[in-house]
């Protein structure tokens, strides 16, 4: 769904120019529809959020977003999202590699499995995960003897995030791996490169931009996740409470401004991080001549 985002047309030059680069007509109309659609679907809700927050004044805003609770919850959210996306960057790449590079019985089935986290209602996923990882659950009971507990601990947040964000990495990386030219790897092999060197110097650079896109999407999805996490996290303030839970709490206490202020903070932080990842991705592509 998103791989195309990361591959702009090669002849598209940057800059402030109004110029259709497609031979197909209809630039004006499609551009206008794009603006209206983005305005209604994306900017509208964001504008309402900013509008609500603007009413509270700078000092009250800063006062709200710098409380220990908000900062700690933000840290918990960011940290968990980072762990989950990093883990999925590795395992997702592996899954994508295996699914595209090898033929094995049940490959189609495994391929379809990857999309399940997209389709499953997050609450269902949360209940299933927490049942599985609860101290007396199937998996949880195996960890208990080692003094480890996943459900109702910060680790539970990471597990839920890993579940819901896996498809983003796999589905972004998969088409790129499919397009990799096996000839290059074969040539390197014939020239005496080790397997590891081939992967790191030939395959990985080609995959890296897509992997970064997948990472960014997964990270963003993790930060925004609510439905499944509330079931497995335990939601203890300062311990296992994520920012969206805090926002809902503020709303339930009729503190709209507080809720939107925290929302704006979350939005700003996410935007900065995503921007950084996108810049990094552009840099990688340039460097490796993608």
């Amino acid at each position: 769904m998103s791989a195309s985002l990361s591959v702009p047309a090669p002849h598209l030059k940057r800059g402030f120019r109004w110029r259709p680069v497609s031979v197909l007509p209809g630039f004006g109309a499609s551009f206008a529809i794009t603006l209206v659609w983005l305005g209604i679907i994306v900017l509208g809700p964001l504008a309402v959020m900013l509008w609500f927050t603007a009413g509270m004044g700078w000092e009250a805003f800063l006062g709200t977003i710098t409380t220990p609770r908000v900062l700690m919850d933000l840290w918990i959210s960011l940290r968990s999202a980072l762990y989950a996306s990093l883990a999925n960057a590795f395992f997702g790449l592996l899954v994508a590699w295996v699914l595209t590079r090898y033929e094995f019985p049940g490959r189609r089935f495994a391929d379809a499995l990857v999309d399940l986290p997209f389709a499953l209602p997050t609450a269902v996923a949360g209940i299933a995960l927490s049942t599985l990882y609860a101290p007396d659950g199937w998996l949880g009971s195996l960890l208990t003897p080692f003094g480890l507990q996943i459900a109702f601990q910060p680790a539970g947040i990471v597990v839920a995030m890993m579940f819901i964000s896996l498809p983003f990495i796999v589905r972004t990386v998969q088409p790129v791996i499919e397009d990799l030219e096996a000839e290059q790897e074969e040539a390197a092999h014939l020239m005496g490169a080790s397997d590891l060197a081939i992967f790191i110097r030939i395959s990985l650079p080609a995959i890296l931009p897509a992997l970064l896109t997948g990472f960014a999407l997964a990270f963003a999805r993790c930060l925004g996740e609510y439905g499944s996490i509330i079931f497995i996290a335990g939601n203890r303030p300062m311990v296992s409470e994520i920012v969206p839970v805090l926002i809902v709490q503020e709303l339930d206490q009729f503190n709209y401004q507080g809720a939107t202020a925290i929302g704006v903070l979350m939005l700003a932080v996410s935007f900065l991080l995503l921007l950084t990842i996108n810049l990094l991705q552009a840099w990688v592509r340039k460097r490796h001549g993608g």
Partner: protein
Amino acid sequence: MAISLSRRQALKFSAAAGIAAGTATFAGSPAFADANTLLNVSFDPTAQLYAAYDKLFATHWATKTGTTPTLHYSHGGSGAQARAVIEGLPADVVTLALAYDIDAIAKKGLIAADWQSRLPNNSTPYTSTIVFLVRKGNPKNIKDWGDLIQPGVQIVAPNPKTSGGARWNVLAAWAWAEKNLGGQKAALTYLQKFFANVPVLDSGAHGSTLTFTQRKIGDVLVGWESDAYLSIKEAGNGEFEIIRPSLSILAEPPVALVDKNVAAHGTTAIATEYLTYLYSPEAQDLIGANFYRPSDPAAVAKYASQFPTLDLVTIKDFGGWQKAQPEFFGNGGYLDQAFGASGSSFFGISS
């Protein structure tokens, strides 16, 4: 006949009704425009009570007026339900967990400011209290609030920031600690230890009950007496026992007419009767049968063994909700102070 609406469905319904009203193409057909139709927006633990009451009331209304009413209801966390009504859920009556949530609707002008004096007993047709539910045989030997903060005891309780019932919990615990441990500072320490023993903070009383009874987590559930009785009834095999602490709180879940909405829907008559009839001997008996404490003398006598007399504080002892809410549950209040002190590692060490 009652039709169940989840909050989300109800919101969708209201959004659709709103659009329809705006375009004036729906005239006459939406259910909410009928004088014999009513939407009761309530909180989680009253689902069984109102399912039963709606049947009783439907018969009563049919006898009285000759028309069978259409009764809709919506259940959810008390605060979230109040917010939904503020944002446009077309409730004719609200029956919530605490007066503070109805006050919030009143502040937006949907309900008259003096709503609580319009019906008997502070507009509270039924009361409850906070008790402990423990597993069979009470293995951790929990007798009173002090036993809850022992190391190794796992408490299941909802989050007071989102659950009305959980706010009654905190106030009851506070009253006990302040009296028995000596003052506010000791009570705050007690609250810290209490929440340090809570492994799962669900967002509502219903979620906590499921965590304790279905998912088998924790040694003790702290919550509504009505919920405790319901859990025992549903398990049906002596799996749980109720423990009553030496001091608890009179939990008063009030009811109110949403003046602006009933005026718009033309449902003042049915909505008023719906609330007033809650105080009738028949309804009071039903209330007792559904594990809420009735006030009607006959029902009180009938269910006396089910509801032993307890030493109870009331919200008045805390200066009313308008004072207690910010003091305990507002940002930086006692609850935040209690939460701020507890911490744990990434992988909690299980005992």
